[in-house]
């Protein structure tokens, strides 16, 4: 049942209109209200930040297929606890989200959970095999706006050209690429460099990403299509994106919290929670990613939340799957490691985690502005609260690269469609 709420005295940070001031925000019937109504539940938010709910462009919810790792419901609960009001589950499920039925299934599961909006990503090619384009038109009618073969790139440039060109028929449709040249990356277990050679782990050079970024930008120019680049990891990729944006290409890019925080040096103990793809690179790359996020060359932070079973991760390094969970730690990671050291403002951080991804995703009810009549999708967090990342997680998995880390910034309330789905740091459903 819709609630009437009054969030009182928070610092309202609203990048959509560049607002940053202490104010009250009233909520009624699922919307931001003009003034407080009688009988509203008052939540004292003194000292807290109130912002548009976070939006994740890159989530793995594992359902259908690997419900032992995550379900739409458990993933949405993790998202809500992390301050997210919208997530975009990737298409690499089993079966693959390459036809409308899977899209409907995932979205219905999301609606049933009722914890945040779920905007499923569709595959670009059938079965993610890189050979035959999916029925993009039908998928668009089913509500898909972002298409991606995430986990790999579209292997040939002509297929990518056709997908980018064909998708121009549909407003707002984005082709999202995981940039990795399979022949250069080969069996790469970590970033190729001094540490990979010493640890005896096959390396994945940054050029494996850069050659595909360069190819994709050229094909985007050729096609005039709308391209999004997933989880960039290398300084060289950023330079390519910077030039492409200066030239006016329709391209956006994302970075993960773990690439903003960690580097190859975190792999020295063969801890498989740091095995991610693309791999954690050098500290120079990490610095470049932070600055590129601050100056907008990288538009958005996306979690690449990738749950894996304990027994799969507690294995020999080269046999463990890649990925870290991230929904419950993303905000604190960005606040602690990028905002606190002064690399970027809080306003820009919220823009990168909410306003920009909402725009890329074509989710008008998210990302602000926080104005009367707008859907009430909001997060309230305590920027000063320090905590240690440790299980239990709301996610069904616990493969977090942040395990044991002290971070600052904790979600207090999450308001989704006007309802308090997280209150005082606890999920309400």
């Amino acid at each position, binding site marked *: 049942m819709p609630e009437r709420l009054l969030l009182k005295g928070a610092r309202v940070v609203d990048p959509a209109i560049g607002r940053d001031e202490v104010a009250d925000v009233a909520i009624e019937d699922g919307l931001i209200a003009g003034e407080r109504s009688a009988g509203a539940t008052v939540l004292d938010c003194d000292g807290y930040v109130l912002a548009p709910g976070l939006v994740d462009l890159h989530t793995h919810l594992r359902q259908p297929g690997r419900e032992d790792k995550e379900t739409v419901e458990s993933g949405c609960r993790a998202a809500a606890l992390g301050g997210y009001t919208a997530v975009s589950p990737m298409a690499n499920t089993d079966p693959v989200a390459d036809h409308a039925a899977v899209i409907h299934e995932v979205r219905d599961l999301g609606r049933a959970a009722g914890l945040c909006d779920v905007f499923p990503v569709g595959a670009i090619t059938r079965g993610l095999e890189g050979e035959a384009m999916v029925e993009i038109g039908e998928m668009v009618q089913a509500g898909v706006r972002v298409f991606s073969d995430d986990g790999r790139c579209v292997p040939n440039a002509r297929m990518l050209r056709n997908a980018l060109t064909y998708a121009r028929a549909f407003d707002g449709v984005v082709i999202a690429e995981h940039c990795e040249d399979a022949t250069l990356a080969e069996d790469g277990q970590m970033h190729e460099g001094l540490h990979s050679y*010493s*640890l*005896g*782990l096959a390396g994945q050079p940054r050029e494996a990403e850069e050659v595909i970024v360069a190819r994709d930008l050229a094909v985007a120019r050729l096609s005039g299509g709308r391209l999004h680049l997933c989880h960039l990891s290398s300084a060289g990729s950023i330079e390519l994106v910077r030039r492409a944006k200066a030239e006016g290409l329709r391209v956006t890019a994302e970075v993960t919290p773990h690439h903003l925080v960690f580097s190859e040096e975190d792999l020295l103990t*063969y801890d498989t929670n740091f095995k991610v793809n693309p791999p954690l690179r050098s500290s120079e790359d990490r610095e470049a990613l932070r600055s590129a996020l601050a100056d907008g060359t990288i538009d958005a932070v996306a979690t690449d939340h990738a749950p894996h079973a304990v*027994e799969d991760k507690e294995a020999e*390094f*080269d046999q463990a799957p890649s990925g870290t969970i991230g929904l419950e730690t993303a905000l604190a990671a960005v606040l602690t490691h990028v905002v606190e050291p002064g690399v970027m403002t809080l306003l820009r951080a919220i823009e990168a985690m909410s306003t920009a991804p909402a725009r890329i995703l074509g989710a008008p009810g998210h990302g602000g502005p926080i104005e009367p009549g707008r859907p009430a999708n909001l997060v309230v967090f305590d920027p000063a609260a320090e905590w240690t990342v440790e299980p239990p997680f709301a996610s069904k998995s616990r493969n977090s690269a942040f395990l044991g880390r002290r971070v600052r910034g904790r979600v207090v309330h999450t308001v989704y469609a006007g309802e308090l789905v997280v209150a005082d740091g606890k999920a309400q459903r």
Partner: protein
Amino acid sequence: MNEHLLSIHDVSAEDIVRILDTAESFREVGTRVIKKVPALRGRTVVNLFYENSTRTRISFELAAKRLSADVINFSTSGSSVSKGESLKDTALTLQAMGADAIVIRHSSSGAPLTLTRWVHGSVLNAGDGTHEHPTQALLDLYTMRDRLGRIEGLRAAIVGDVLHSRVARSLSFALAKMGAEATLVGPPTLIPPDAPAWGVQVSHDLESVLPKLDVCYMLRVQKERQRQQYFPSVREYARLFGLTRDRVAALPEGALVMHPGPMNRGVEIDSDVADLPRSVIEEQVTNGIAIRMSLLYLLLGGSRTETGGADA
């Protein structure tokens, strides 16, 4: 010394001298009629081999037996591992059975370090993936010191597929640690680009390096690397980087030829060269037993038994 031997980085230069000196005293045991001392009586050593290896497994087995330890050989074929048991569950099982030391050979780099998270006993790395093979490096140092009287200041070349060689990694780190001058020699595709950071030199011209050497250490080259296009053909590899009879003549008098085995005769080393008196390949094998006795003894032998007794 550390509780485990996972990497050459786990031992200091002083530790290495102690390991070699202890091995020296154990070598004599192998010349007796009854080749056995009671140093590790009642202790259990498990050989956990995820990769086939004849010489390393037998060497560890003999070393443990000559110290009177109980030895269990656990190889993965025909065992619970072939039924899909994970490394963690295998480790917990061995732990429950009371293994004092686990000697592990594994095709995954880092597996020995991962194993230490789940067992209480000492873990000895008997070769992990393309990472390290520290006991091989130690027996190589022992052989060099035994033949040449010192390690510091020796000039050694490590020739071949350094990129994929755990032997080359451990030996490079060990030589640098002991003050020897190591040069890695091979085609640029098989030399890690960042190798100078290991404290070694790099060359792609074997002939120019040979006249300055005390030790020429040849690595096994797997023919599979040709399929992966690291070099165009085995024939060309042998021509450029094989230790032929002609090339060996360029070595200074007294310089040693070494190889960790098993050899590809006619590829990285000519048959005649392998059998020359200056080639100490069989001595390396013999010395391996003494080095592994020394390591088992130092890691779980006398001193810890004594403190264990005091605690009890």
